[in-house]
């Protein structure tokens, strides 16, 4: 039985959405964990949800990255527990240095809330195994600070190690400046850690996990976890 938990920071606002999405796919209750706790309960996946933790004070995710619970999230991530950071969760993962780079103000300076098309660049992560490498999917973005930045050396390393997981593209899958909503370097929408078990992405899979919401492309991210878990259990 897969055990998932969602960390709740003051200002998180997608925590319950992602809980609903995971429960719909796994059929198992998701545990909510408060940021002031010092220990994450035994989990097969930890989710850092979207929102505006600590009001985005100082920098998006900076305060949350230093909260009590994050010490244990970092320890568990380093020990191999899969960690998924969505939107503000991605910002927290970079601020906590679990992922390289930083998310800066959108090049347009505008808050962008709309569906985008993405190309899944690798199915080799616990979160993308139910997608096909090269598959074009639609997910919504909703952020003011999603402009991914890293120095050239870091970008080259990410590309070389196949750690760019999602890229903004057009409907045909072509990665172009016109398809880049926020100015991200190399159209990067999501990256994973060296051990591939920590994924951060700006788009919101939990917001398109069932037909009633307008699409199901996000659902496969949570199905991926379930498939991986079932395999690990039968191994």
């Amino acid at each position, binding site marked *: 039985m897969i055990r998932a938990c969602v960390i709740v920071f003051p200002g998180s606002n997608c925590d319950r959405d992602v809980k609903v999405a995971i429960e719909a796919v796994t059929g198992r209750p998701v545990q909510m964990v408060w940021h002031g706790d010092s220990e994450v309960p035994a989990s097969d996946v930890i989710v850092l949800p979207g929102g505006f933790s600590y009001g985005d004070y100082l920098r998006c995710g900076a305060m949350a990255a*230093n909260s009590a619970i994050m010490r244990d999230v970092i320890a568990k991530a380093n020990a191999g527990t899969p960690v998924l950071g969505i939107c503000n969760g991605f910002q927290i993962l970079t601020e906590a240095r679990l992922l390289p780079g930083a998310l*800066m*103000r959108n090049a347009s300076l505008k808050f962008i809330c709309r569906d985008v098309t993405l190309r899944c660049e690798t199915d080799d992560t616990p979160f993308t195994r139910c997608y096909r490498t090269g598959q074009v999917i639609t997910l919504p973005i909703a952020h003011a600070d999603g*402009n991914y930045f890293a120095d050239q050396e870091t970008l080259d390393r990410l590309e070389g190690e196949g750690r760019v997981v999602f890229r903004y593209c057009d409907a045909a899958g072509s990665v172009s400046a016109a398809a880049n909503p926020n100015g991200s370097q190399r159209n990067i929408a999501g990256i994973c850690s060296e051990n591939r078990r920590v994924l951060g992405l700006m788009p919101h899979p939990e917001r398109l996990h069932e037909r009633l919401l307008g699409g199901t492309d996000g659902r496969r991210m949570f199905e991926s976890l379930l498939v991986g878990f079932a395999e690990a259990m039968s191994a």
Partner: protein
Amino acid sequence: MKALIRITLKPGVLDPQGKAIEGAIGALGIAGVGEVRQGKYIEVDLGAADEAAARATVERMCKDLLANTVIENYAYDIVR
């Protein structure tokens, strides 16, 4: 003692807010303005015993929290 801390984007890191400010200055009809870069200014009261201790404290808070050294530089003065 007090630390006067300035946090700025590293050279080469795009600064869309600075660009927008640059445009707004131009819109005021003020000529002769080159590139504008914006950042943060933070004042911190310190209970440190001496300046060396104050500097060590400020270094730590800058590195661990106040600046994101992936994209930002920091500089500071310690004043009495």
